[in-house]
């Protein structure tokens, strides 16, 4: 009964909330617009925006020397999570069956496990850093911890269901993933989408000014 609900209506509800919520948040940000720039642009903004979108992913020396742990753990978590979410066979099959109708190449089982190990290590280290460092603890609020905890629980329930033999474990994983989807648009997890806007805006503004940033 509850399994049918999680597998059916709640899945569609959470997906709808996620999609509408993300679109609503992005439109709201874009509608704010930017202040007019009356100065003569030294360079076009588009190239700067595109360049910054990628260059900001590369570690800069001051960042690396002062924050090795956050940097390494951050890469571990994000790359591991990306691989888990979009390249793990169970997820690709799920997305193919429920959303896209087609699948794509998946990681071998050992790759899946390795990605999970890397993602878990990164997430745990980042969460502990947030808790231990007085600065990050000061600027963190309930929403940050809720998001971290939800992501952790989704990953943990997924790893507990790795045997793919128990419906109860699969449903628990799906339920937590659905809760995460519902929470996503209203949380700082939106940075998965807004980072592109933020970097693009900064890159474009700096390019117009002729600043290499």
């Amino acid at each position: 009964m509850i399994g049918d609900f999680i597998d059916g209506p709640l899945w569609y509800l959470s997906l709808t909330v996620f999609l509408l919520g993300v679109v609503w948040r992005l439109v709201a940000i874009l509608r704010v617009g930017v202040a007019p720039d009356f100065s003569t642009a030294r360079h076009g903004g588009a190239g700067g925006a595109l360049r910054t979108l990628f260059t900001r992913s590369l570690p800069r020396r001051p960042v690396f020397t002062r924050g090795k742990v956050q940097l390494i753990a951050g890469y571990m978590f994000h790359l591991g999570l990306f691989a888990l979410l979009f390249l793990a066979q169970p997820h690709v099959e799920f997305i193919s069956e429920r959303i896209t109708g087609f699948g794509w190449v998946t990681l071998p089982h050992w790759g899946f496990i390795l990605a999970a190990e890397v993602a878990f290590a990164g997430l745990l280290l980042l969460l502990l850093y947030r808790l231990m460092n007085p600065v990050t603890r000061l600027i963190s609020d309930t929403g940050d911890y809720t998001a971290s905890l939800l992501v952790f629980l989704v990953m943990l329930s997924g790893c507990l269901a790795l045997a793919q033999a128990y419906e109860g474990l699969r449903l628990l994983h799906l339920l937590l993933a659905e809760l995460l989807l519902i929470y996503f648009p209203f949380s700082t997890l939106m940075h998965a989408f807004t980072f592109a806007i933020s970097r693009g805006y900064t890159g474009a503004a700096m390019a117009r000014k002729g600043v290499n940033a």
Partner: protein
Amino acid sequence: MYRPVSGTAILRLLQLLIVLALVVAGNLSAQTQAEGIQLPNPGTDLWREVRQRAQPATPGPTSPMRQAPGIDLWSEVQQTNPVPAGNTQVKSVDSGMLINPVGDQWRRFRMEMLVPYGGYVLGGALLLTLAFYLIRGRVPIHAGPSDKRLLRYTVYERMIHWFIAAIFLFLALTGLTMLFGRSLLIPLLGPEAFSLLASASKEGHNLFGPLFLLALALIFFRFVRRNIYQRGDLAWLLRGGGVIGSKHVPSNFFNMGEKSMFWMLVLVGGVTALSGIILVFPILGLGRELMALSHVAHGVTAMAMMVVIVGHIYIGSIGMEGALEGMATGYCDLNWAREHHDWWAEQCEQNGEVVSVEEAAGTEGFAQGAPKHAPLGETGK
């Protein structure tokens, strides 16, 4: 994945269920007390029967065993003599061996030694800790908490400590579920719920196991220098760290007990982690003997670590006033340091590293470098 089941699959499932039902029914009536469990184990009776039938016959013309036509067959099946290599299409390690007696030895060790004695040892450690607390009580800061603090652990050090702590606790819980669940949890949860829990525990345990090795490496490289034994450590050990008697025992940044725990964690924990990796990756082409040996090493060393960690958690939390503060905030109370790590505290005071409570609250171990500690051999007075 969860695909629609075909008619053939349903038939196979029915066949499997019928066979399982027959085996379960047959075994329920022949429960053995030797294993101290009330649930059927299909392999136990079968193997016992094999052993009985393959008992070496007593010499003598009237021995019924000599007349048993299957004696030679059963002797070969049991393979107690040098193992004859069989032929099979399956090409893998041990694939030519029908029944490996090492598997039975391992099973008996697990069921008859590791489970009961491991339980006694772990339960005993918990009871001993409780008794110690009731008798000795919480070790106070005799001079009382001060308004001064010393930086004891940086953010990174506390982070990797809690990293390994979280992973260890998860591995311990899931490991204990797999080891004792059959005896303790099935009566509480029932076999179906336990089956789900055991599967989840196994998957979680296997996935988090390699992370323990990573955490262990981080801990090792960060703390190894401060855990090298120094002059003065032996005196600390001989006087039981102050537990025996009432005389104060001086120590360095880490005392002999902490250093010994560090080395136990590194060495014994290393064996636990490496044997666990052998168990997780049977695809490495290892034989049954090494797998069984790895399991024995994994179980025994993990149990030893759990016993020691029970003591570590106790003394680091409710057992001693001020002990948790260092690992929680990065700073420890000056009076606590003077009473438990006085050589280190003395050096910090000489170096002017004492800060106020307010200063400590503002930074909380934000300093990136390791806390100053006595260079080797300079403080053992």
